[in-house]
């Protein structure tokens, strides 16, 4: 049978390159002077400056990972870690400079804000250029702001939580992040407040040979709930760009947080991101992740189920095409009784792309009556692509229900014949099966969600059913 020819994602929208204009771009490399300069530029309080310098020391001490994709092409001497766009933080789109606003327009952000979001943050290179939230949420005490403002306005809250969920020495790129972080969002949802409509932060990296190191810190207080969406993209350059963000989520007793990500970095990006959630008693965090872009991605969101009855679900898909090595997965630690985790991971490899599902499920001694169900499915669309499944299952007590299942294979010829017998062409039949494969993830995203995943899948599988 003829090989399927699914076109590369139409990247035109994502590929809009603006001129590399900035207010300030730090010189390339990573030294104490550079970190001090960033700290000065950002007018850090003393504790933050100290944290940055300590992190730099840690960075220099830590080794590169001895596993996973080869990231030796990353040369920090060639990366500018801080690029300040030529604008201040704005709270109306009118004040955002024309070319930057145009980019976000084309990505559909202001439109989505009007239709289906309760608040939006937009970061361009190293700084947030736009932040706004519906007034009624403000009245309820919800805080949604850029990270820099949070450091100044809510010093105690930030200091208490910043790099506490993800310790600086977690791995080398966390240390790097802590040393040069800039931008990102801070969210606080007070006790009992239910934010029904999602908040969204969008991260755009325009500047070549640079890095984005945004920090997202979300605290959902007792009994509150939130859906947070993060999107990211960048135009493609010939040289490597680096993304080493950090996401710290605190989900307090009885609270609920859904964290959705549509990652569509350009294919020269090294995406070495770190995300963790600490989940308290009877609280729940759900991760929904679509990973389409990047040259290399190493991303393993982690739920730490500290409270009794804490829950987490991970629903993720990776789609690797030519030249991409997407090493993604999930980690969960069960630290208390009656906790539960459900993992549904899928991957698609085509045109020589490589997907790896890498994971950890650890059920500790005290996590009695806990439950974990993991399922991974990998689809190979041709014989030049690769797909690996590397799950670690660490069960340290008996009173648990744990099961893990993984499948790997191609689209079944029988299924293709069945659909063709109903009048679908071979390409249509394959596209329909691939879409059906991705459906459990795409259905988890809000229908209104303007920009990303559904669009990407639809573009990818153009001609399939509407």
């Amino acid at each position: 049978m003829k090989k399927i020819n699914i076109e590369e994602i139409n990247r035109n929208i994502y590929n809009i390159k603006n001129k590399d204009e900035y207010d300030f771009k730090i010189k390339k490399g990573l030294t104490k002077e550079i970190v001090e300069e960033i700290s000065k530029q950002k007018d850090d309080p003393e504790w933050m400056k100290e944290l940055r310098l300590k992190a730099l020391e840690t960075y220099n001490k830590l080794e590169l990972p001895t596993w996973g994709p080869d990231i030796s092409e990353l040369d920090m001497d060639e990366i500018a870690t801080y690029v300040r766009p030529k604008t201040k933080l704005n709270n109306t789109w009118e004040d955002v400079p024309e070319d930057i606003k145009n980019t976000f327009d084309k990505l559909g952000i202001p439109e989505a804000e009007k239709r289906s979001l309760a608040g939006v943050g937009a970061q361009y290179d190293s700084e947030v250029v736009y932040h706004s939230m519906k007034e009624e949420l403000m009245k309820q005490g919800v805080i949604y702001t850029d990270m820099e403002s949070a450091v100044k306005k809510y010093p105690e809250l930030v200091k208490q939580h910043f790099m506490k969920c993800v310790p600086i020495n977690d791995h080398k790129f966390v240390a790097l992040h802590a040393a040069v972080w800039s931008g990102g969002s801070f969210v606080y949802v007070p006790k009992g407040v239910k934010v029904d409509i999602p908040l969204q932060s969008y991260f755009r990296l325009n500047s070549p040979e640079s890095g984005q190191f945004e920090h997202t810190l979300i605290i959902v207080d007792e009994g509150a709930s939130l859906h947070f969406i993060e999107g990211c993209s960048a135009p493609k350059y010939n040289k490597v760009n680096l993304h080493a963000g950090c996401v710290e989520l605190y989900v307090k007793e009885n609270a609920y947080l859904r964290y959705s990500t549509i990652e569509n970095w350009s294919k020269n990006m090294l995406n070495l991101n770190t995300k963790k959630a600490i989940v308290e008693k009877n609280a729940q965090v759900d991760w929904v992740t679509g990973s389409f872009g990047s040259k290399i991605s190493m991303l393993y969101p982690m739920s730490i189920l500290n409270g009794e009855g804490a829950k987490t679900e991970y629903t993720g898909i990776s789609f690797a095409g030519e030249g991409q090595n997407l090493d993604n997965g999930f980690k969960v630690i069960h630290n208390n009784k009656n906790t539960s985790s459900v993992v549904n991971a899928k991957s698609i490899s085509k045109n020589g792309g490589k997907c790896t599902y890498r994971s950890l499920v650890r059920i500790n001694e005290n996590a009695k009556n806990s439950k974990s169900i993991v399922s991974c499915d990998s689809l190979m669309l041709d014989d030049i692509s690769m797909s690996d499944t590397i799950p670690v299952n660490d069960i340290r007590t008996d009173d648990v229900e744990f099961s893990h299942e993984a499948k790997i294979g191609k689209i079944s010829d029988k299924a293709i014949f069945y659909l063709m017998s109903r009048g679908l062409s071979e390409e249509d039949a394959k596209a329909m099966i691939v879409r059906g494969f991705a459906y459990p993830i795409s259905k988890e995203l809000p229908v209104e969600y303007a920009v990303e995943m559904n669009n990407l899948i639809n573009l990818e599988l153009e001609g399939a059913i509407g």
Partner: protein
Amino acid sequence: MSKELLEIKDLYVNAGETEILKGINLKINKGEIHVIMGPNGSGKTTTANAILNNPIYHKENGSIILDGEDITNSKTDEIARKGVFMSFQLPEEIPGISVRNFLKYAKNKITGKPVKIFEFKDELKKYMEELNMNTKNMDRSLNVGFSGGEKKKNEILQMLILNPKLAILDETDSGLDVDAIKTVSKGIEMFKNKKNAVLIITHNTKILHSLKVDYVHVLINGKIVKTGGQDLAKKIEENGYAQYKY
């Protein structure tokens, strides 16, 4: 306009190295219901698959003509769009695509016309009710988690919606209880008219109790060894296939 809908001429078909069909000849006219009967392994399912040109079977010789047009080497989807439908013995499960969206899309492909959403839903609902199907199943993934009976009814539903010229029913009656067989027969009667035809493939005679047919062919070891009317099925019911073995 010609009465003849399908003609199979001297068809030889292999699966891998094995020769399965050894010279099949068959003519089906518009307005007729034909039955191919035969024991397990005689080549019944191969015949159905060969008409739709399933790539796992290889035609060594012979031709298949639909409505005057040679479809021997056409692609499966082209054959489907020209008006041949097959109800599968083991319908495939396709996760993530609902019955409704699938059929809407397939109908669009087959008719080449846009499908009106609300009319289509009403039509679907009507047929599902006629077939005693749970109408909620229209929003479930295609065949996923359906029972054997639900899958077979879903095939008949697809036949009614796609309204082909020739419907091939491959063992649609097997594994069904009496009530389900009646429902399937009812579906065939609803479908049947003077312009189309039905080819039923089966190894037992149950469905012929509730359905009137025009021709019965006995397929043994890759060849049609006997052709007759409904009474031939009765004889087989009484005496089995042994009399035809040689």
